[in-house]
């Protein structure tokens, strides 16, 4: 199945697929950020793939000069009972990824969480608010340069 997925994707999007990797039978396909919605729509609609569920979105801070952040989409196909990890890379200067709420409505909260934790913006998201941290909070806690002990006074006490 893993081979079918990579072949289908490479045949349909030869310029978009940046690479694929298999580790412990988990397939990861890296695609160009701008082409993400088209690839996602194809993965969902193509009958031989049929990835109809978005299970999770995982942001990763690689803490490197170029393409610092990764966004991983864990997809699941109900028909083929198969997982797939779709990966895009973004720069620190303009961490913007097109939203996938139009493809899978469930992306809404996962994208909010990724925005909350990493400051990655999702262009076209209907309601990009923080999910866990308060709205006034200025930092992105899961970035590697955010200290484990937190930043003093970054969480204001409630007004009296």
């Amino acid at each position: 199945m893993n081979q079918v997925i990579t072949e289908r994707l490479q045949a349909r999007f030869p310029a978009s697929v940046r690479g694929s990797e298999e580790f412990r039978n988990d397939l990861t396909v890296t695609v160009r950020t701008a082409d993400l919605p088209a690839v996602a729509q194809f993965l969902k609609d193509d009958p031989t793939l049929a990835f109809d569920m978005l299970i999770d979105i995982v942001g990763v801070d690689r803490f490197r000069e170029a393409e610092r952040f990764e966004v991983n989409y864990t997809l699941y196909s109900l028909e083929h009972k198969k997982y797939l990890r779709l990966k895009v890379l973004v720069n620190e200067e303009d961490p913007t990824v097109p939203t996938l709420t139009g493809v899978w409505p469930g992306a809404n909260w996962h994208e909010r969480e990724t925005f909350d934790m990493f400051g990655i913006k999702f262009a076209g998201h209907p309601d990009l608010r923080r999910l866990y941290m308060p709205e006034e909070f200025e930092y992105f806690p899961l970035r590697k340069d955010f200290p484990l002990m937190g930043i003093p006074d970054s969480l204001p006490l409630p007004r009296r």
Partner: protein
Amino acid sequence: MSARTSEESKKSQILAALEDQDTTVTMGDPLENDMVLNMGPQHPATHGVLRLLVRLDGETVKAVVPELGYLHRGYEKIAENSGYHEFIPHTDRLDYLSPLSNNVAYVLAVEKLLGTEVPERAQYIRVLCCEMARIASHLVATGSMAMDVGALTVLLWTFREREKLLDIYDVLCGARFTTSYARIGGLQQDWTPQCTEMLDHFLGEFPQDLEEVEQLLRANRIFIDRCEDVGYISREDAIGLGLTGPILRAAGVPRDLRRDSPYLVYNALDFEVITLSESDALARFYVRLAEMKESAKILRQALDRMPAGPIHAHEPKKVLPRKDRVYTRMEELIHDFMLINTGINPPVGEIYQGTESSKGELGFTIVSDGTGHPWRMKIRSPSMTNLSALPLMLKGGMISDIVAVIGSVDPVMGEADK
């Protein structure tokens, strides 16, 4: 001053008091005659610290905005800064109604990263853990849902059953609640004959006790009226939102990871995947009831088939040695020292391992850079995703439906907020 203006000023005072910082959340077009009700985070029917902002037109719910994060403890950040073994106790505190299955889900993810497989006996014990946790969690779910709609007796009866399971936990791992029982490549300690005896006793009584619980509600007009056709979500919406667990199965999708991507020894065990098609609060309740019966079936099979043998994988550089050997043998002492100080150092790579926990798909994504702690660990919590369906489920219903629907979603905020 006329009566009219004083009434208006009173109204604006009330509005001003309502629209302080706690209620200024965008809810689409504001309408003047709507009321914004703040439910939670301290409301007993929200099962913890879930906060809902509800826009009401009379008694009809027009919009709902769930607010999360009141129990956010930053577990993913903690995971990045602690070793793989060190994180096991934190998994107890995710879904605190079924800690045993969280432990197992986490160690399965780490073992997938390591490429380790535990011996068969350990796999059977883990199945027992997962299913006991599922029954214990579903008992709270059904009981508290019934309590939320007014049937208090059911909660007391289901908690009585749950106590028996917690007593087994106590004998099995020394803790009733925060179990931390699974270990990477094994288990904390072996299953004992006393546990077998207790579980056997429990399984003998459980079907009858569950039947009694069901009898309380089966023909209960109040319960049925409050749950039937309430909180409906269509099959397409449920799949699109990524809902999992009893909610998805109540919507007619037979997705169960124990069957679909088998882990442990589930493919050797015989059980049904329960599905209903009504997709309302009552259907979710009945899916949970039926799943408990299936879990009891699995427990009986696993108990009968559990082989003798070791419970730890023979990989000294990955699996913590037994404590008595650490104190008496040189090799084990060295391994223990290295494992505690440098960690297990799995290969570089990314894995995702999902398991079917009581609430739905509990999964861990681990990004390893080859050192003793994960570079990134993401918890895929079923409660969080399931809660994202609340706005759809509640819209157009009555205000009194809210508690029934939250009960049927069965969120645990420790897991939803991480």
